[in-house]
């Protein structure tokens, strides 16, 4: 079984950066012929010929023992081949040729560690330190190798020795903090992080990256760091770090409070930096509320010229979390500020129009549509936007307004499928409300063929009902739909429930359709609708769906589990040929929760 790659942990962060930088450096020092050979080996590796790749790399290393590209690739290929041990003679030869090369030492330690040669890791690390006792790299890499093989106490001792050799704190603070954090020594971890923070702005990114890596496991340590960073009299830059750290520690309120204090103290550039980094941290830490607040601060902090390019992505972020109020505010400000006729202005106007229409603000949406059409009369999205605004009017019960919009803005039929589908859906509804059943059915059929997703399903459902309903039922359907679209779901569903009995193939479907809307609105009215479908039409194809719906409602009620199970059993036993039986079996199994017994 292959396993997914793990998240790089703690000390490995340094190795990662080093790893990214190395191939570029290594390629630069490899002469052309050898580089060609290394590329050839890479091609063999991609083709799965690991042995062939190893052979070429060994040839390169025979000629140039300390060739970094070849060494690094040989390590990777041999690791894949399960033959890591074969790299050791080559790395030892390379070290003999270039003992000063820190990367070779690092690779050597890593391989020894991965082969489980604990004693040799110790010897190699000690040898490297002896050769460069005043440099930090040997201590850092030796400790990393020890930590990888689980010898964390030894790793800690090496780092502390390195710190002493380098003249004391704050040397190796980030690495020490990593080790303390993974072992739950929160105060010590916070102390070391504090040392990283005090090293100045250049270390800010490193500290934030470390906090991000430890966010899920070291919240207590990060909270201690927040306390240390933001104390009375502390400089605002430490406060900014404290706000970000509090975010990673999961303390949203504290993060917002500290950020507000800092924002009041600093200039606009620092405000922008803080708001940006806080928003990013909040999104990474799964705190959308804090991210939203940070974006507001960001938009307040930037001058007019920088405002517009930032606003559209922020509005889309608000929409992604369903916050149409915040999105509308940002979009309105964007429309007000962006140069009229610019691409940003046009995109923001179109999006604002759609958001206002979705919020039921028909008049505002129509005004925006007028303005949009004036500025962009040939724009291809105009028919779609017109259909969106017309649909909003229709939902508000303003049929005449919807018709006027279509007359005013549709000089020709749209060519793209989505606009065509939306338009057909609007026309179908208008025809339905006017009692023109055939016209409604034809338009909704066209909508069903052009639309996708939920809107397509809705159109298909209405077409099916219109094909089978009696004039009475069609009238009830139209009235119910109008009420439901206006948000009066109870009234709409009740119109279906009170229909007098009559022979009709559409009745069970109509009852289910109304019940589904009632269920979505969490109305108890759903139950009598489903019960009527089941009681009055037990042989209909909709009866199993009614039973399933009733079972789900019962399962959601306190003490309704046994009733739910009984209904599912009835579905399975009385409608064995129904397509819903496998689903009912699965739900029954879940509800029974009788396995395991322990």
């Amino acid at each position: 079984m292959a396993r997914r790659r793990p998240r790089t942990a703690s000390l490995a962060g340094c190795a990662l950066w080093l790893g990214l930088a190395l191939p570029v450096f290594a390629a630069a020092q490899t002469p052309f012929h050898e580089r060609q050979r290394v590329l050839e080996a890479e091609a063999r590796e991609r083709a799965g010929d690991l042995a062939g790749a190893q052979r070429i790399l060994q040839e390169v290393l025979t000629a140039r023992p300390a060739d970094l590209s070849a060494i690094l690739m040989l390590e990777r290929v041999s690791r894949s081949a399960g033959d890591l041990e074969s790299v050791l003679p080559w790395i030892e030869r390379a070290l003999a040729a270039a003992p000063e090369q820190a990367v070779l030492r690092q690779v050597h330690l890593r391989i020894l560690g991965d082969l489980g040669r604990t004693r040799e890791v110790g010897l190699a690390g000690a040898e490297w330190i002896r050769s460069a006792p005043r440099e930090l790299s040997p201590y850092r890499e030796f400790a990393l190798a020890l930590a990888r093989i689980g010898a964390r106490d030894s790793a800690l001792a090496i780092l502390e020795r390195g710190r002493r050799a380098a003249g004391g704190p704050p040397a190796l603070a980030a690495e020490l903090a990593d080790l303390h954090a993974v072992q739950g020594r929160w105060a010590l971890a916070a102390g070391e992080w504090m040392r990283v923070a005090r090293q100045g702005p250049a270390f800010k990114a490193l500290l934030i990256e470390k906090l991000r890596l430890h966010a899920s496991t070291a919240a207590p340590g990060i909270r201690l760091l927040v306390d240390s960073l933001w104390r009375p009299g502390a400089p605002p830059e430490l406060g900014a770090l404290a706000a970000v750290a509090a975010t990673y520690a999961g303390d949203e309120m504290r993060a917002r409070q500290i950020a507000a204090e800092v924002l009041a103290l600093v200039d606009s550039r620092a405000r922008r930096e803080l708001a940006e980094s806080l928003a990013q941290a909040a999104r990474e830490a799964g705190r959308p509320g804090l991210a939203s607040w940070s974006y507001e601060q960001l938009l307040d902090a930037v001058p007019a010229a920088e405002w517009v390019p930032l606003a559209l992505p922020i509005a889309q972020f608000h929409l992604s979390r369903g916050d149409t109020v915040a999105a509308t505010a940002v979009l309105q400000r964007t429309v007000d500020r962006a140069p009229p006729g610019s691409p940003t202005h046009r995109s923001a106007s179109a999006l604002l129009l759609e958001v206002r229409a979705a919020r039921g603000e028909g008049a505002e949406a129509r005004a925006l549509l007028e303005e949009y059409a004036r500025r962009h009369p040939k724009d291809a999205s105009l028919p779609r936007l017109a259909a969106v605004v017309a649909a909003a009017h229709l939902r508000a019960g303003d049929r005449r307004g919807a018709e006027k919009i279509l007359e005013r803005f549709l000089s020709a039929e749209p060519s793209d499928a989505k606009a065509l589908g939306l338009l057909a859906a609007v026309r179908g509804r208008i025809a339905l409300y006017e009692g023109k059943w055939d016209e409604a059915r034809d338009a909704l059929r066209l909508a069903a063929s052009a639309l996708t997703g939920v809107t397509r399903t809705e159109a298909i459902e209405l077409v099916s009902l219109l094909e089978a309903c009696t004039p009475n039922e069609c009238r009830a359907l139209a009235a119910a739909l109008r009420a439901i679209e206006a948000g009066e779901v109870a009234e709409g569903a009740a119109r279906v429930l009170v229909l007098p009995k009559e022979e009709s193939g559409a009745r069970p479907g109509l009852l289910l359709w109304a019940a589904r809307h009632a269920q979505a609105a969490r109305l108890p009215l759903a139950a009598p609708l489903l019960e009527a479908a089941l009681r009055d039409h037990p042989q209909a194809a909709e009866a199993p769906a009614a039973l399933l719906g009733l079972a789900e409602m019962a399962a959601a009620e306190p003490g309704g589990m046994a009733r739910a199970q009984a209904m599912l059993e009835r579905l399975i036993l009385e409608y064995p040929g129904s397509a819903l039986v496998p689903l009912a079996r699965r739900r029954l199994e879940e509800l029974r929760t009788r396995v395991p017994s322990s």
Partner: protein
Amino acid sequence: MRTALLTVALALGLARASAAQDLLVPMDATQSNHLRAYGLAYWVLKQDGSAEWLLNYRSGSFLLPDAPEIRREAALRGVRVEPVSGDGLAAIRAEIERSNMESVLLEKAPRIAVYTPPNSSPWDDAVTLALRYAGIEYEDLWDGEVLKGELPRFDWLHLHHEDFTGQYSKFYLTYAGAPWLADEVARNRDMAQTFGFENVPALKKAVAAKIREYVEGGGFLFAMCTATETLDLALAAAGADIAAAFADGDPMDPGASAKLDWSRSLAFQGAELVENPAVSAFSDIDGHQVNTPWRQPLGAFQLFDFSAKIDPVPAMLTQSHESVIEDFYGITTSFRRERLKPSVLVLAEEPAAPWVKYIHGNFGKGTWTFLGGHDPEDPQHVVGDPPTDLDLHPHSPGYRLILNNVLFPAAKKKQLRT
């Protein structure tokens, strides 16, 4: 509870008397849900009823008493049953008598234990998946319960992908830092500490020894995937260190393979250990070595035919409506023939390949059965794959093999002797 069971039992008895016929649960191609059919038979046993397993008759059908409750339960589970009249039953018995078939009485629902770490996902173990799908009850247990001597409470014990060498499936180095592995390591280390073991490999050796005792005392053991190979390695390594440094702080003993005592193992002998800690393979017992560059491709394995009258046990374990089954990987996928002890009975093999798939043997008063591979319906099984949905595989012959093992301990004791 007892009263309720009695009521159901009485109802079953009375209803049967009035219907005066039986229900055949066919297990050939006409069956609508093979896997849940095992659950139906188990359910009848659980209600204090009895059932017959008609070995080799229509691919290992079950004969149940005819009662409305049983018909209802069959319908709820989607299991096809056929009413059988007195004459029909006589004809079935006559056919069994003159063919390679046998009727085995199932008389008691076995008490089932699944060895699994706390918080593990049920869908990562083919047996728990099969048990849940079929509706067969089981209890979870782990090292603590095993060491406290709770195994004798159960008739049947299942092991899956546990690494009894204590090396965390040798994923330790490749996946250092992964939260799931960190949890696994911490949980095992805590358990070792709780029971006073120096390290995890020592803990696992003690657990393996307890499992061996359980089988010796009359338990039924069924193991899959890594548990098969590593259980035997742990048993054979009582006097040797076969764990890499990351697991116990010091490297494997030099020449550890030669120090293994194969008289203590159940199934294998003479294996060579994979000493490289960076390679996720344990020994040369496994023929496929899935996580190595020398991985072997998957083929198909064939179930052997056994005499149902003379060898009812292997016949029970191999009941299937398909005799050739597509192979599936696990960290231990198969067992090399040359590593099997001479007493091992091979139940399924890949013809002409140097490995077999499914083996069985006796030890003391009990038996063990090993099936290589991880999930019969997820042949590659990359971790992170979505869980197998058995509603999509209700006829899975690979899962049938697992469920054959679950019902095997229900058979009347005297008929289990071979």
